[in-house]
């Protein structure tokens, strides 16, 4: 890889959307943005008047586009330093320092094909959403399944868009599991990810899907180890973890 300086750039907040009560998406306009690959992230840097700075990483939620627009989806972490700033302070027109795109392994592009197995816990769905959005935009034929674990139905990020993608594409399956509470008449899963659930997710994808898993460590460990036990080649499984620390 050629050595290329990843400069800090001043992005402008173009739009803010509520996703759930604890999650918002932010559209940033980044000058001279190099197109990203789905799965990559940016680093964000906040600077206080006394020179103090805080940096965090945020996955890119949007599919690559020509216009230098990058969507981030940020979950509000109570007592956090950076995510509450996004939620409580930022308004449209504000500026934020970012650099990227970063990350060369947890990435997917249409040429990789599939079949694709995507497994997400909570805000871990963000980089997988970029993959699904790109898959739809590029009209990739490979079949895909998203297995998505949330606490409650109201915590499901991108719920309507996921519904819409699944109903317009019969090669895309979306399986939800709700671990805390389920709405009346719920027919999806209602427990943490386990082996029978993984077997069901594998259904129709062959035995060696290209797999991306993102979420808190316990979920990533359970899903990745479970798939290896079910015979998926570890070399086909890519993981990213950004949940709470353990």
């Amino acid at each position, binding site marked *: 890889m050629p*050595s290329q300086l*990843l400069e800090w750039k001043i992005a402008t907040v173009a739009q803010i959307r509520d996703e759930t009560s604890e999650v918002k998406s932010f559209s940033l306009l980044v000058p001279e943005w190099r197109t990203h690959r789905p799965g990559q992230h940016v680093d964000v840097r906040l*600077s206080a008047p006394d020179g103090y700075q*805080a940096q965090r990483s945020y996955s890119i939620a949007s599919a690559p586009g020509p216009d230098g627009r990058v969507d981030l989806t940020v979950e509000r972490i109570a007592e956090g330093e950076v995510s509450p700033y996004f939620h409580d302070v930022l308004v449209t027109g504000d500026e934020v320092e970012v650099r990227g795109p970063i990350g060369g*392994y947890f990435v997917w592009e249409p040429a990789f094909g599939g079949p694709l197995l995507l497994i997400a816990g909570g805000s871990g769905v963000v980089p997988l959403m970029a993959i699904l959005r790109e898959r739809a935009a590029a009209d990739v034929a490979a079949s895909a399944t998203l297995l998505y674990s949330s606490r409650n139905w109201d915590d499901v990020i991108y719920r309507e868009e996921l519904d819409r993608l699944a109903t317009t594409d019969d090669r895309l399956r979306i399986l939800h599991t709700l671990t805390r509470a389920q709405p009346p008449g719920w027919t999806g899963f209602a427990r943490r990810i386990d082996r029978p659930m993984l077997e069901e997710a594998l259904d129709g994808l062959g035995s060696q899907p290209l797999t991306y898993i993102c979420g808190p*460590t316990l979920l990533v*460990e359970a899903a990745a180890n479970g798939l290896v036990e079910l015979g998926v080649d*570890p070399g086909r499984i890519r993981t990213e973890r950004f949940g709470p620390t353990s």
Partner: protein
Amino acid sequence: MTGRFVSRGFLGRPRDTDADRAGRIPPGQYLTDGFPVLSAGPTPQIPLGQWAFTIEGLVRAPVRWSWEQFLALPARDWTVDISCVTKWTKLDTRWHGVSVDDLLAAVELDPRAQFVTAHSFGGYTTNLPLTDVVNNQAFVAYQYDSAPLEPAHGGPARLVVPHLYFWKSAKWVRGLRLIEEDEPGFWESLGYHNRGDPWREERYSGD
């Protein structure tokens, strides 16, 4: 220039006034009490009967230790601060393991050896200048906090190079290969910095 930009309405956490602690957190890092886990793929499960550690490459004769033999090597406790490129820093982590100096003492180094590649079960690699792993700067740990090192944190054994970003501290390590010319490892070929010094914020290629 950096430092000029001010984020509207951002004050940040109250600064850590303990000078000692504050002086131990590299730029752009924040302090955590947890122990986050990061890896590119599934955690390999390595039966101890199949575990072995080798030193090979530019050495007079390679060596190989089984798990029992490795545990019999001189080991000691290490208390070190660690920093991950994903921005967390953890102070005073406690490990038990063998100094890389003591491992290299078992082989005769070819004077052409300048770099090492650490190899792991599962295929991970990372590259280091020899000068970064000698003089008690690096060790192979098999205990964390007085307990066997958990698989998710790199057990049975991981390399620990505390003065560099933590991706250099290869989990599930199974050997060191001494080489003459530097070869980028896994993350180093994917856009991460070749050396990874947290105090110089060497995060990504070009930093």
